[in-house]
């Protein structure tokens, strides 16, 4: 099966109940081709997936759905502290099945059997992290675009 171990970064501004938060993540996902379509399954955060007709479309759909999950979390969060707690739980919920395949795909990348010249490479053991910050003093310097890379 055509599979790619992905490392991704997202920076999202989320409006909550009485707060605005910035959610930054460095996570991982598994991009797979199945029946002519591409699926991206979250590894960290696990618990959701997206699809597309091509690799980039699937990754874009995954990023959109990531933000929509944050929207859903925000709806029920009474305050920032609850939102932060729930986002942390979301991120740290590992999709163990996808993780096994992700690690196997990393091994294939290292053997040179998988490559994706449309992605930069990053070390597979790059730190995974989530940071949720309440915005009190917006600054343009905090704006960052997302990124994706092949775990190697």
């Amino acid at each position, binding site marked *: 099966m055509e599979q790619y171990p992905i490392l991704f970064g997202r920076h999202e501004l989320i409006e909550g109940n009485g707060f605005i938060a910035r959610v930054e993540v460095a996570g991982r996902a598994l991009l797979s081709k199945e029946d002519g379509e591409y699926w991206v399954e979250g590894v960290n955060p696990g618990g959701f*997936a997206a699809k597309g007709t091509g690799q980039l479309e699937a990754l874009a759909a995954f990023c959109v759905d990531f933000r929509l999950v944050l929207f*859903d979390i925000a709806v029920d969060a009474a305050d920032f502290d609850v939102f932060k707690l729930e986002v942390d739980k979301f991120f740290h919920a590992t999709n163990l099945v996808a993780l096994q395949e992700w690690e196997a795909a990393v091994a294939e990348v290292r053997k040179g059997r998988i490559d994706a010249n449309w992605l930069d490479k990053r070390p597979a053991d790059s730190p995974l992290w989530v940071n949720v910050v309440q915005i009190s003093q917006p600054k343009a310097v905090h704006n960052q675009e997302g990124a994706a890379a092949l775990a190697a």
Partner: protein
Amino acid sequence: MLDACAPGARIEEKPHHNWVYWKDFEPYRLPRGKHGKRDNPEIETGHVKRMARYFGVLNCAKNHLQI
């Protein structure tokens, strides 16, 4: 499928996803689609498959669904 493969699972509707809770897992988020509609069963089957993988019940799910 959930009744057979993930007994006790419960679903909570959120604006953009249906959150599926089972055992101690963080919920799996099944997308509801634009405006809360989900009118393409083929897409949903793929998402259900991935949910089954997440919960570790894919083999059971294959016995109940065309996945």
